[in-house]
């Protein structure tokens, strides 16, 4: 085993310093950092909007805002969280880790990598800026269904173009990841030798390339329907408003898996590391992710069970949707089997990964409940669905991102984070997130529709509980912020490999790694997994 050590960056003199360094950088780690910081910012902005939602819903009656403003908050909250927080966080992780994990010097197309990132701040300026236009920002929900979306005021074209920009950014980011994985792996690292995080991103990138353009198409049709007299979504002209929903969800469903597959990858790195045991069923993990990705293209209409599809359609989409529980189950079982007879410790990353294991599964169960069409006639557009997707998105995607942050922070910054505060953050988050979202299942079952700013009084208690959970969960994230900032600024020096059971190439580079990650491709002995055959 030949450790590759490069102690310093030999090209310091080429780099512009200060702000220009960050604006012009083509370095995957710099860009990864930019993505991660951007995502953190967006998480807080989107979260602040969510706090507005929860505050208005604290008790019945309109206290704080106009109903239209409330709808704007909901719409912006979702768009910012999805396109601004979760997706860029995953792309940031991919940027930082994939080249390192496969033994590459950088991403395959470094300049384009910079552009993928630098489109985002402009896109979100455009989106968030609409809130200040006369008539306010978009208020038709993140799904932007026509004809309602067509009633948006001046904000309309800005929102559409912001979505276009996010799409361009995502597609370029995804192409870069695919190319890097296909072309820059260390010699002899066949696809089935790649770490799972790389695998999940590989498949996610294909999903992105396949569906982001479809979203672009859908919103383009909205644009032409509003300004150029087309009739895509107008029955009078032979179109159909429901057609938009089909096109949107053809994007939208794969999109939700785009937000969970990289999370699966992260969990598949962390659980073995802290169980000190090889991942159980590596290959079936890969096949499971591939099947989920495939199935994600043929389940979209499960978001539309109540739109009045013909019976055959309802049945088809019910069956395919239920089927997704099978490969996802395989993953959950494999993680459990990895824990089994391991030697487990509970550092913060592991705690978040374990919370993911439990809480994502709960979100999956409510997903399967939604897939049962007769029951979905009750759940659809109710708070039950809100509970479902926050379990998979917050305690799924967001928790996995937090786990990844704790897992790799020592590598990124060269400092250990404050473990005590990390654990505090974990316990607060996990307890309060359940106070926040668990009651929403019952609200939905009892008949509370989603996207409403005010509600009948019998829903008061559960809403108050949920809001209190929300405020406390939000406040807990300030601990996260503090931990990250203090870890960047200093702390105990991190060794190359701070986690006893961790495997993978990233731990063979010093913390933080040199500017060009692997100037020489690492040898097989370095990355070959001891237990994998």
């Amino acid at each position, binding site marked *: 085993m030949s450790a590759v050590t490069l102690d310093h960056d030999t090209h310091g003199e080429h780099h512009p310093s200060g702000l220009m360094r960050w604006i012009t950088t083509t370095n995957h780690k710099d860009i990864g950092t930019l993505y991660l910081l951007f995502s953190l910012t967006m998480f807080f902005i989107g979260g602040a909007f969510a706090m507005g939602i929860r505050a208005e819903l604290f008790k019945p009656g309109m206290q704080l805002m*106009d109903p239209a403003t409330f709808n704007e908050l909901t719409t912006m909250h979702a768009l910012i969280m999805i396109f601004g927080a979760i997706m860029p966080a995953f792309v940031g992780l991919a940027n930082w880790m994939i080249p390192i994990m496969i033994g590459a010097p950088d991403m395959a197309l470094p300049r384009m990598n910079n552009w993928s990132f630098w489109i985002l701040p402009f896109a979100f300026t455009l989106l968030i800026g609409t809130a200040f236009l006369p008539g306010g920002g978009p208020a038709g929900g993140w799904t932007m*269904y026509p004809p309602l979306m067509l009633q948006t005021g001046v904000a309309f074209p800005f929102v559409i173009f912001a979505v276009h920009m996010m799409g361009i950014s995502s597609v370029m980011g995804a192409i870069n990841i695919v190319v890097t994985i296909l072309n820059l792996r260390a010699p002899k690292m066949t696809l089935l030798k790649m770490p799972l995080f790389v695998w999940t991103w590989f498949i996610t990138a294909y999903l992105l390339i396949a569906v982001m353009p479809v979203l672009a198409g859908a919103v383009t049709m909205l644009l032409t329907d509003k300004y150029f007299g087309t009739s895509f979504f107008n*029955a009078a002209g032979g179109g159909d408003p*429901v057609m938009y929903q089909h096109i949107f969800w053809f994007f939208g469903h794969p999109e939700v898996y785009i937000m969970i597959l990289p999370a699966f990858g992260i969990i598949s790195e962390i659980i073995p590391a802290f169980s000190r045991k090889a991942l159980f069923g590596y290959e079936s993990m890969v096949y499971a992710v591939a099947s989920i990705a495939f199935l994600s293209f043929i389940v979209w209409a499960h978001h539309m069970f109540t739109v009045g599809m013909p019976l055959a359609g309802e049945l088809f989409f019910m069956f395919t949707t239920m089927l997704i529980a099978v490969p996802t189950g395989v993953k959950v079982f494999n993680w*459990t089997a990895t824990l*089994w007879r391991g030697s487990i410790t509970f550092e913060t990353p592991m705690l978040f990964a374990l919370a993911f294991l439990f809480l994502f599964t709960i979100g999956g169960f409510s997903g399967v409940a939604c897939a049962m069409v007769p029951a979905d006639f009750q759940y659809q557009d109710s708070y039950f669905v809100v509970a479902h997707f926050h379990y998979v998105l917050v305690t799924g995607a967001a928790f996995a991102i937090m786990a990844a942050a704790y897992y790799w922070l020592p590598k990124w910054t060269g400092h250990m984070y404050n473990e005590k505060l990390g654990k505090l953050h974990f316990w607060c988050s996990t307890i309060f997130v359940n106070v926040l979202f668990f009651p929403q299942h019952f609200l939905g079952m009892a008949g509370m529709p989603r996207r409403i700013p005010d509600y009948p009084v019998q829903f008061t208690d559960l809403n108050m509980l949920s809001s209190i959970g929300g405020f406390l969960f939000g406040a807990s994230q300030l601990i996260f912020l503090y931990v990250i900032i203090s870890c960047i600024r200093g702390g105990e020096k991190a060794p190359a490999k701070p986690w006893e059971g961790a495997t993978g190439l990233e731990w063979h580079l010093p913390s933080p790694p040199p500017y060009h990650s692997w100037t020489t491709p690492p040898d097989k002995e370095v990355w070959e997994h001891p237990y994998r055959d």
Partner: protein
Amino acid sequence: MGFHTIKNAARAALFAALGGLAGTAHAGIPWNVPVGVTPISHEVYFIHMMVGIVCTLIGVVVFGVMIIALFRFRKSKGAQPAHFHHSTLLEILWTIVPVIILVAMAVPAAKTLVRMADTTDPDLNIKITGYQWKWQYDYIQNGFSFFSMLAPASDKAAQLGSGIDPNTVDNYLRDVDHPLVVPTGEKIRLLLTSDDVIHSWWMPDFGGKTDANPGFVNSMWIKVEEPGVYRGACAELCGRWHGFMPIVVVAKKPDDYLAWVKAMKAGGGKYVSPYDGSLEDTGSPVVFSDVSYNKVLGTPAGAVVPTGTTVSPAMASALANKPGSNVQPPASTPAAAAAQAWDMKTAMEKGKQVYAQNCSSCHQPDGKGNPEMGAKPIAGSPIANGPMLAHIQFVLKGKGIMPAWGNILNDTDLAAVITFERNSFGNHKGDLVKPSDVKAAR
């Protein structure tokens, strides 16, 4: 005594057990999907509880194993890591078992779904049209229809900073001015559509919701088993007041229902309250048969309109009833209505109505506009006091947050509302806009 009976018995037992769990729902504590009052709602409840219980059981097993692992295999307890990393047998097992469980759940779900989809052969058809933000209930066989919107008490309390405690309002946000009235024990087909954006008609006690899409007619069926008052709400985001368009259905025994229908027809155009068995006159308007079947988003002039005043054979057979119920064709059609003379009085009256339905939410009932939203005042507006053609074109095409009403309203409504705007709120142009003017300006 075959397999079937055993299955039915098992089902009944499960029901009984679930009924116990659901008791709270009846006690008024909002915790669970209601069992409801239609055959479909019972089945939906069954599917809901089935999937809930199955998932809970799977959860108990899976989480159980995880928790055991987390306790037994801690490093702090001296656990040494094992070296296994796969087991074909296990992997096959945990692929097959979920498949079996899923198939077992899919079968009853599919059967229920088939029954839900069977909207044929109803005793009664009611057309429901969603508007921003109210419902229109059209008893197409009886020839009358009316609007149903949030009850005034709730509406008042729901205004920002109203100072009214919602807890003091009866049925806050769950009450409407004119409930839908249906007979019990009869199969009723609800025909759902919308006049503007998508809405969704959700009545938890009837087992679910169906979307009301503009330009299309969806159907769902109900058969209410018990008389009572049932409350639901619009479930699809439909704009600013989406949270404020509840649904109330009063189910009456067939005789009482017929009495109500009779009272409605005799009521001289007033909505008759169905409550308390006393069919009192509430003094609110009911539209008789002037149901415009064509008022859908984007119907411009020259659209296909129903011709003739009698029901076509296709319509008659589609509406075909079981013997004994009363089919009545719509008495008149928009074509007939349009033939009416067009004078200032008609235009102003109609215009007022159209304004209240479409414009007042932004421009306000007093025509003063809403600066916060960017809605300009109509009172004293240069457009409403300027040339007629420019005014028509502005309304047709829209601008900024002002929608292009040309896609939404028909010529008659537009002519009426523009006339109204030019001659109200202190504007005195005195001119009468004719539908043909609007048509020409398109």
